[in-house]
């Protein structure tokens, strides 16, 4: 049992990594986060155990690079009148899930992370917990709380 060639790893998981980035930081900055995630994955790849859950590993790295984008934004001065995350978001298309993901991006960081890993990355709650280094119960709670808050705040 050895690691698959990195090209096959990318063929299998790149789309999921990109979608997680798009959900977490928005389409405008998704490509940058995605490229950083691929590079980080390539750097670390030879040290990975062959039996690892490659999909969860890929999405965890994508999540961390998306987090870097959020941190950089928080440091960036925001123009007077701009509304934080919203300033970079294109006009959401109500026909797509864009508006909903824009609402997810406005959630507190812990809930945003849990919802993007769970629903954009399609990870199981236990995998979300491992990616965020929290207990499975805490991950389930964040997912539930995030969904509840979305229900309150999201108006299509």
């Amino acid at each position, binding site marked *: 049992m050895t690691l*698959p*060639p990195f*090209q096959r790893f990318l063929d299998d998981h790149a789309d999921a990594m990109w979608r997680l980035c798009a959900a977490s930081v928005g389409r405008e900055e998704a490509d940058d986060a995605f490229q950083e995630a691929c590079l980080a994955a390539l*750097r670390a790849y*030879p040290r990975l155990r062959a039996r690892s859950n490659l999909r969860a590993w890929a999405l965890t790295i994508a999540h961390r690079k998306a987090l870097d984008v959020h941190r950089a934004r928080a440091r960036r001065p925001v123009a007077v009148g701009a509304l934080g995350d919203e300033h970079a978001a294109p006009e959401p298309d109500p026909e797509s*899930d864009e508006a*909903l*993901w824009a609402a997810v991006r406005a959630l507190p960081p812990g809930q945003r992370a849990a919802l993007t890993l769970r629903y*954009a990355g399609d990870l199981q709650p236990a995998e979300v917990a491992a990616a965020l280094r929290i207990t499975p119960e805490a991950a389930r709670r964040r997912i539930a709380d995030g969904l509840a808050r979305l229900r309150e705040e999201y108006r299509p």
Partner: protein
Amino acid sequence: MTAMLHPPRGSAPPFALHRAAAEGLLDVAYCEVDTPVGRVLAARTPRGLACLAYEDGGADAILDSLAARLSPRVLEAPARLDDVRRQLDEYFAGARHAFELPVDLGLVRGPFARRLLEATARIPFGATSSYRDVAAAAGNPAAVRAAGNALGANPVPIVVPCHRVLRTGGALGGYTGGLHRKERLLALEGVLL
């Protein structure tokens, strides 16, 4: 809320290979090349061309082997093999008699096999040698069988021209890609009609 959270639509852009290369992370770059003797998979390391494999069994098994034996950092990067593709095209068009490519014999097991392939690489276009002679050139004229094994395991056929090694007396012997390919290559070089 009746809407469901689905993954955003869309797919990933191509991975920025130039950034991987700039960081020295492109351990094994590969591409597929169509030739008159079938499709081959060419792979290079920073040291040179390490693999030119006939794809009869498909690319996946070859890539698995490269990942296990060289490095798991295996990426499809055709631009990194432009010179390999060009020189193969020229060779099969009859316009090139010698390859000018660095070769990495990292997939070759053992010093004798390595010396043997280095000796084989010196056989010029249109000429042939015998298993006995290349074994002698590698330092052990008695190791005819080992010479056959090493040539059969040649990771870079065509470029290291093991097709130019015949049995003493001129019988074809064996070939890593099957005898029909050996005949085709020797015919291209004017050795066989």
